[in-house]
């Protein structure tokens, strides 16, 4: 179960990488996709693609123009970073300290998963050793109570 989960996570991260890198599309689609990675500087928390503000409209036009001039998405990103700082990117770049944000959740989940598997294994072993009475399900007290109550309800 652990390895399956891990494989799923890795597959997820990889496919997200491919999805963001490979797919092209019309100029408008590319513009919107790139604009979705940029933060609208005058809004509270919206991307340039989503924001209805004038500032965002202008920035979309800049992106569109630059794409038309044949600039690569990376060049355009760098252009905005040089003007506004890293803050303009809605996802932290995958380098240096930012890896903490990207990887820590998965490290925590894989670590927690390991602990869970170990705990279950230990608990099973302990259960086999002290296997004097089988657990709850066949307790005669409950069974009789159960039958009584069931009869009562059916009426």
């Amino acid at each position: 179960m652990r390895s399956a989960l891990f494989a799923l996570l890795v597959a997820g991260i990889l496919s997200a990488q491919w999805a963001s890198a490979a797919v092209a599309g019309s100029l408008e689609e590319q513009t919107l996709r790139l604009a979705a990675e940029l933060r609208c500087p005058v809004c509270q928390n919206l991307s340039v693609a989503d924001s209805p503000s004038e500032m965002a409209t202008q920035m979309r036009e800049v992106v569109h123009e630059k794409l038309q001039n044949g600039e690569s998405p990376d060049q355009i990103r760098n252009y905005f970073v040089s003007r506004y700082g890293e803050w303009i990117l809605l996802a932290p770049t995958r380098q240096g300290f930012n890896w903490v944000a990207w990887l820590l959740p998965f490290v925590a989940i894989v670590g927690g998963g390991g602990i869970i598997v170990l705990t279950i294994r230990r608990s099973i072993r302990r259960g086999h050793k002290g296997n004097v009475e089988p657990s709850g399900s066949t307790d005669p007290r409950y069974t009789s109570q159960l039958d009584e109550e069931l009869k009562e309800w059916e009426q």
Partner: protein
Amino acid sequence: MIATLGRFSIWFALAIAVYGVCVSILGIRRHRPALIESAQGAIVSIFGLSSFAVLLMEAGLVGHDFSLEYVARNASLDTPVFYTIIALWGALEGSILLWIWLLGLMSVLAVMIESKRQRELMPYVTVVLLCISAFFLFLAAFPASPFTTISPVPPDGRGPNPLLQNHPLMAVHPPGLYAGYVGWAIPYAFGMAALISGRLGETWIRTVRRWSLVAWGFLTIGIIVGGRWSYEVLGWGGYWAWDPVENASLLPWLTGTAFLHTIMIQERRKMLKFWNVALVIITFALTIFGTFLTRSGILSSVHAFSDSGVGPLFLGFIGVVLFLSFSLLVYRSDKLQAEGDLDSLVSRESAFLVNNLLLLGFAFSVLLGTLFPLLSEAVRGVKVSVGEPFFNTVNVPIGLSLIFLMAIGPLIAWQHASIESLRRTFAGPLCLSIMGTGICWFFGVRGLYPLLAFGLSLFTVITVCQEFVNGARTRRRKTGEGYLTALSKLTSRGRRRYGGLIVHLGVAFLVIGITASSVFKLEQEVTLKPGESLQLGRYQVRFDDLSAWQEPHRFVVQGNFTIFNSNHKVAEMRPAKRFYPTEQQPIGTVDVRSTMREDLYLVLSSFAKDGTSATVKALVRPLMMWIWVGGWIMILGSLIAIWPDRRRALAADSVEEYVAWQPGRS
């Protein structure tokens, strides 16, 4: 007059809260039931006084008493009465008042309903609830007093923030969210009572499960309605921006969901005692953290409508809560040992454990992402943003794994699931959902995530339906009832199980809606002259003209559009821009045409002042409605699970669970 009475009632309530805390501690130490009853009386009085304060505030708002600073800032002569009434939660001070009132209400209900059954725990529950009340009353008495006066008295107020007087859902969203936040105080108080008194059996767990469901249900309503509000008011075409305040409401929802699942293990198997108390502490702390984020302005947010200096007090309170609670937890850890053992890696118990791991992992990544800008600034001195692209990349795989567990979890046997039983239960649904995924692919769905999302949601729907059908069939065979009778009786005999399954069904609808509406979204922004149209998907959007008029409290410019679907006129849509005298930027009003198949969403981006052109942003979002339908199904499911059963005696409780929780039995 109002100010004096209001301030008096809050101070008085604070004094009573402090009195109640002292008296109940004394009562517990000296075993004096009279003192404990007096403390419960304190809870009732606080509720009475806070109701009075709320009424006073409403009287001030509706009566336009601008000598009150809060009224002057959040009401005006021109604001419609409805929005004047709900301005109570338009800013910090009023929200804290609402919070106090809700906490008072829940505490009174808890005392009324549980004090007979929980004689041992109740005194401690009272202490904890009174302490929480005292903190919020302190806020309302000093740093965030809603009854501060100003002089000279202004002739008119500023009115509420235009975004808050633009949509009737504002009447539901904040109170729902607050009721969800406040509701977790009850399970927390019971958890603490169990820790302090050392009565750490299953009693407190059995008592809080319904209270937790209530809190969870309100939180769900608050979040879903908040998304709807965002979609219809903020005008960017989305409903969830991974905004700090939205994230803050999601955090206790995630940990609370984990709690609702693991208490079942403790009830049945007497395990995870330590973990359950820890979860309820974390959830409660996160609700306070959510209020703190909403109201402190420490992170910029589309929902933060007030800044103030109460931030440090909130942080201090969270610190004290976490420190005291976890110290107690560690102190009592020897009493929190598991009494049972697990039997197999493949069992309902394991599924719940992995579910908890993923829910907590999800919550952790949301918390980390929300706070990472602060962290980065502290460590590197560089401001970064963490927004939608980050959260989607990290959380979508976790979310998909959770949906997988959601589909299989309720059907795996407790203790040990044999290969044979797994095959019998899942072979059919698995085949059907793989076929369904194939059909999705055939109709042009591409990409791993969308296909997984559709396939897993379908898998959930099929397994839930299978469970209902099998149960009803068995009942029918035994009792000879009609199919519908059997189905409804089945549900009412195992409300918690079947309510829970209906919630799962709602989540599946929600996921289908989220996936379809974001992956197949069509979007266009075009400037049109009157008579020109744009083509988007099946729709032709024709711009007719602009109209403009003055309303008492605002000026409105509206674009008139006619919508055609393959040359048939299907609708007229009127997105607008509203100009408020107090705001520099106009507030957009979107127009949405919703059907089960798709939403058409129009925003008037800008216009030429002479009316010769308008720029319109149009979006088509398929299956958008499914998100709201899914939300309502979730709420319906939790209502079914919460609904009290009159015929059921107290002693029968455990037996009912015993019957209802036999998995995959047919």
